[in-house]
């Protein structure tokens, strides 16, 4: 590659720094505000660095809004989604990676198309479906954990299946055949041989499903209320008609981001690779 002159170098790094500031600025504001007193937030001119440093927002964030409960709700729903998506997704991905059957290509096409459909199209009838299930079968669905887990699992599936299929395609088929010769049936071959080999791909897919459940807003607005409300909606409750608790909200935002950052950084290479593969192959 051609070398840069010092002047070019200067501008090169300048632009990089501007980009980083643009990306991190809002984040810095969130973190710094979470350490400010409410007097400083409401009463003084805003500054980037807190004038008096306080942990009160973190101590009090659970008093106005039961954010810890919402956090636990989200944890239950997202973990449940992750586990269900892992089971269903692995089976389906293995099916389309290892078998040729009539309708397979159509199924893959449907999976791709489903990702593009707007959630708004389903939400009204979906809400009615849940009401119908409750009225006729007697199984409560709205405002339950299993209802949310089922919903999110189905949303996570199309992308999960496609991502995992890419990964499974890279595991040689000879390995399955060897396992079959050694006396395994198909399910045993998948369970005992392929799954251990596909762990990184599975981890990426599970985390994708987890993050999806953690972030979803549209369906959670309609299908959850106090008992199962997720953290994504809970954050909105710090601001009401009567008061705006920005400091506590920023503390809660930091708190809500941590699981996602931890989950994502642990498998970022695979998720990004999956997303990028979707773009470059499409």
């Amino acid at each position: 590659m051609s070398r840069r002159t010092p002047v070019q170098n200067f501008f090169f790094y300048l632009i990089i720094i501007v980009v980083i500031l643009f990306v991190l600025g809002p984040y810095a504001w969130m973190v710094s505000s979470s350490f400010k007193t409410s007097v400083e937030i409401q009463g003084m001119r805003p500054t980037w660095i807190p004038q008096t440093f306080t942990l009160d927002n973190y101590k009090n964030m659970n008093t106005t809004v039961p954010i810890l409960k919402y956090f636990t709700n989200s944890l239950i729903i997202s973990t449940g989604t992750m586990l269900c998506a892992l089971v269903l997704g692995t089976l389906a991905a293995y099916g389309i990676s290892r078998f040729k059957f009539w309708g397979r290509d159509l199924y893959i096409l449907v999976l791709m198309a489903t990702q593009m459909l707007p959630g708004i199209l389903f939400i009204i009838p979906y809400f009615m479906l849940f009401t119908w299930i409750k009225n006729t079968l007697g199984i409560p669905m709205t405002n339950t954990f299993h209802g949310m887990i089922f919903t999110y699992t189905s949303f996570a599936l199309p992308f999960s299946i496609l991502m995992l299929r890419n990964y499974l395609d890279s595991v040689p088929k000879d390995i399955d055949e060897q396992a079959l010769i050694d006396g395994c049936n198909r399910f045993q071959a998948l369970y005992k041989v392929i799954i251990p080999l596909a762990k990184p791909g599975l981890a990426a897919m599970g985390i994708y499903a987890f993050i999806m459940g953690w972030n979803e807003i549209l369906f959670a607005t309609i299908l959850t209320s106090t008992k199962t409300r997720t953290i994504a909606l809970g954050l909105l409750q710090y601001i009401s008609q009567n008061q705006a608790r920005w400091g506590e909200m920023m503390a809660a935002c930091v708190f809500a981001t941590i699981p996602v950052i931890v989950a994502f950084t642990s498998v970022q290479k695979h998720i990004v690779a999956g997303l990028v593969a979707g773009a470059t192959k499409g």
Partner: protein
Amino acid sequence: MKKVRYLGYLFILPAVIAMILVHVIPMGWGILISFRDLTLRNIRNWREAPFTGLKNYITAFNPVTTVGQRFLRSLQNILLYGFVTITVGFLIALGVALLMNKPFVGRNIVRGIILIPYITPDSVAYNFWRFIFQSRIGILNEMLLRIGIIQEPIMWLVGKNTIWAVIIASIWKGWPLTSLMLLAGLQTIPVELYEAARIDGANAWQCFKHITLSYLKPVIKTIMIMNILWNFHAYNQFVVLFGRNPGIHAEVPNTLIMREAFDNYNYGQGSALSVILMLMMLVITVVYQYFFRVRAEE
């Protein structure tokens, strides 16, 4: 071999059932109820709702009705929002991807940092942007005042500026993914091509136009259609920044449909609006594919 075929279906069956329950049945049902006057009165038994034919669809485009007026306005808003967000976001993404494709100190760290907006949960990101946009206590107005670009604090979250506030926040959130995809595309271009072009006397712009862009074309094509369709889904950023009713200047189809269905209990009307939205997306996809195929053949 027959057994193997049947096994394939067995493996995909659970996922197919889940998706039929969540995607296929509700979609069909949604289309059915969009032809009916389904409200709170008859929600328990939708078949009792009077069949009204295309009435809900006609109302959607009738500017005399409140819904029609709001819907037409929401389409205008989403087009403006989508156009600016996608264009500006794409230019930033392409610029940064080109920089990131060059070797420099700390490249991996920078790559990690630019991922941050992408992985931040929507509700967190748009909540802190909502705080940033506060007219008196927000940092954005404070900085603009300090630099002297503005003399009076701007009202970002009320009135005419709302659409620009949501555009700024969405660009911040959206460009990193585009950039990563472009970067992946850039990394597939063989370096020898540039060397050969240099020897043939091509300048930097010619290299960019004939090598970089032509290699990136398929990636750009996918990114663009994905972004266009995703923008029609936009809901989170609007509801977090402005609440359930963003006001006329930042109303988008999704916020309108949600209010029409779950605040005004006009489920039939809401379904009709969402079917229209889906049809528009379908037309856009088909036209887009056709346009690109024709262009590619030329």
